């Protein structure tokens, strides 16, 4: 024990070592690169398709200063896919490949290893979102002219990260419990589908939309309404943890609006007065409350599930 570093290794240095270990893995994962390419392809299509269509029909390309802000907020599927490809084998892959053995026998606590893996996931996804938003801003400005409300972009990235980390924590907890990447992925996909399909059914056909406020995913569907007016710009909104960014944008643009929840009420025969006559208003609440609740629910899921992952990981014994 003659060398000072042997007595007390610096915690921050050890944490950075784990982050490097994981980051190098994340950026070399083919699945992650694939999802990033798909995300860029979708953004490119979104940017260029209206231009191509207008050119085809000899229509002028109009300036759209709200292009970026109205397209901000990743779709639920993209959030889920980024979470899945980044952390699906962060824990389970180590157990399956046997690489957990040399890792756990280094002088780093299991808590620090898990923190390092989470930090690396955060950096990886943050960098991906930063690139995507930068691409959208540059592309949007070049095609549709100067853009409004770009100062909201950092909040959008944070919102998307928070939404993604709900899925990250679900997948990490599953990985820690199952120690099997395929099982983790299958269960996570089933949860994602159940939350999205189930929430649509519950939201549209029942009066139980309130329960969706407390589940991860798409949440309940509602309309943004200013009291006394029928509807404001950007009409419908979903309130789940996947839609935090869209709610942040709406809240920043229209801070005093309400969200009104509706359900479809089928009375038989041909609806008089169009499809909107089938919608029954259930109840309303301020958007500020909806946003605050979604952020709190997301934070609660992240804390609870990461604690679960930590507890299981800490107690796991390496038998093989």
């Amino acid at each position, binding site marked *: 024990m003659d060398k000072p*570093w042997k007595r007390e*290794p610096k915690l921050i240095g*050890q944490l950075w070592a784990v982050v490097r*270990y994981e980051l*190098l893995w994340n950026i070399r994962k083919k699945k992650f690169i694939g999802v990033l390419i798909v995300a860029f392809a979708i953004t490119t299509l979104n940017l260029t398709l209206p231009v191509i269509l207008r050119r085809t029909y000899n229509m002028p390309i109009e300036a759209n200063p709200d292009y970026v802000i109205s397209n901000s907020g990743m779709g639920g599927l993209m959030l889920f896919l980024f979470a899945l490809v980044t952390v699906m084998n962060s824990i389970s892959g180590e157990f399956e*490949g046997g*690489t957990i053995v040399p890792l756990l026998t*280094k002088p780093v606590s299991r808590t620090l290893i898990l923190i390092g893996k989470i930090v690396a996931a955060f950096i990886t996804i943050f960098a991906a979102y930063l690139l995507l938003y930068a691409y959208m801003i540059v592309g949007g400005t070049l095609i549709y002219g100067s853009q409004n409300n770009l100062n909201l972009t950092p909040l959008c990235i944070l919102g998307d990260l928070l939404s993604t980390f709900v899925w990250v924590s679900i997948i990490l907890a599953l990985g820690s419990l199952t120690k099997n990447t395929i099982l983790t992925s299958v269960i996570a996909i089933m949860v994602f589908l159940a939350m999205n399909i189930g929430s649509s059914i519950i939201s549209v056909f029942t009066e139980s939309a309130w329960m969706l406020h407390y589940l991860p995913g798409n949440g309940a569907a509602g309309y943004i309404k200013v009291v006394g007016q029928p509807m404001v710009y950007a009409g419908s909104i979903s309130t789940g943890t996947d839609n935090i960014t869209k709610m942040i944008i709406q809240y920043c643009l229209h801070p005093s609006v309400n969200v009104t929840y509706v359900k479809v009420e089928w009375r038989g025969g041909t609806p008089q007065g169009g499809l909107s006559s089938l919608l029954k208003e259930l109840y309303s609440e301020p958007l500020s409350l909806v946003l605050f609740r979604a952020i709190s629910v997301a934070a609660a899921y992240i804390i609870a599930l990461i604690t679960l992952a930590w507890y299981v990981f800490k107690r796991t014994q390496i038998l093989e």
Partner: protein
Amino acid sequence: MDLAIETIDLTKKYGSLVAVNRLNLRVIKGTIHGFLGPNGAGKTTTIKILVGLLKPDGGRAIVLGEEVHGDNPRARLKIGYMPELPKFPRHLKGWELLDIYGQMYGMPLQERRARIKRLMEVVGLKGRENDLIGEYSKGMQQRLGIAQALLSEPELVILDEPSLGLDPVGMVEVREMIREIAKDGVTIFLSSHLLSEVEQVCTHISIIHRGICLAEGPLKDIISKISGTAILEVEVAETPDKIVEAVKRLPFVSNIHVEGSKVMIETNADGDVRPQISRAIIETGGTIIYMNVKMRSLEEAFMRLIMKSG
């Protein structure tokens, strides 16, 4: 006596199976200590407890003065461990892995880089350090396993089957490496199925069977204790009948048999009895052409002990 490893009534159960049964192990600092036992004896389980991969169900394990009980990073700071058939992340390059592990030990950058360069040479991976581990052969991964175990210049190196997967040249190199490391006063705890390897490099051994320590101590003492003492092979110029009669009368001789002009004398004495035997032969008028002490092998002792314990 300074101990590198001490276990006191160490116990580990898997359901109803007792893998390690009140094991008392003492590994003296600065020794090359072989850890032997048949398959399923509890060797790997014991090692996993020592490095914090498993939690014991009873007893204590103390490594270099640090109590080991589950996740204790401080205890692992002074240990270099190479698991049996080590697996490393395939996405990392050889040097990246060692650099990251070195950082986990808190090694400064310059020291890390110098040490990695040196170790890559020592384990024979020079020139392959920039390749992804996924492209390494089994033998190369084994060599990388040895390098990462030695990376932090540990006080105790635990090697679980270090020669597994290596070619004969690699095996010899590993033995040389072990001897070299031990010269610096590093304690080496070596689990191996290759008894000849253990016999060649170890100074001390522990033999366990069904989780119980059957024998422990200096290698030569263990062999002689288990197998009795040496066999003396004596070649004489004359017909050995008279010589056999004379030698038989010596009190420490337990058995004699003759193969042509050779007399095989089994003794149960602790010291060197060659002078007494020579004198007895010469007194009968015999002429000694050749005399050799044949030590019992570790393999023989090991088998005898395991068979005896049932």
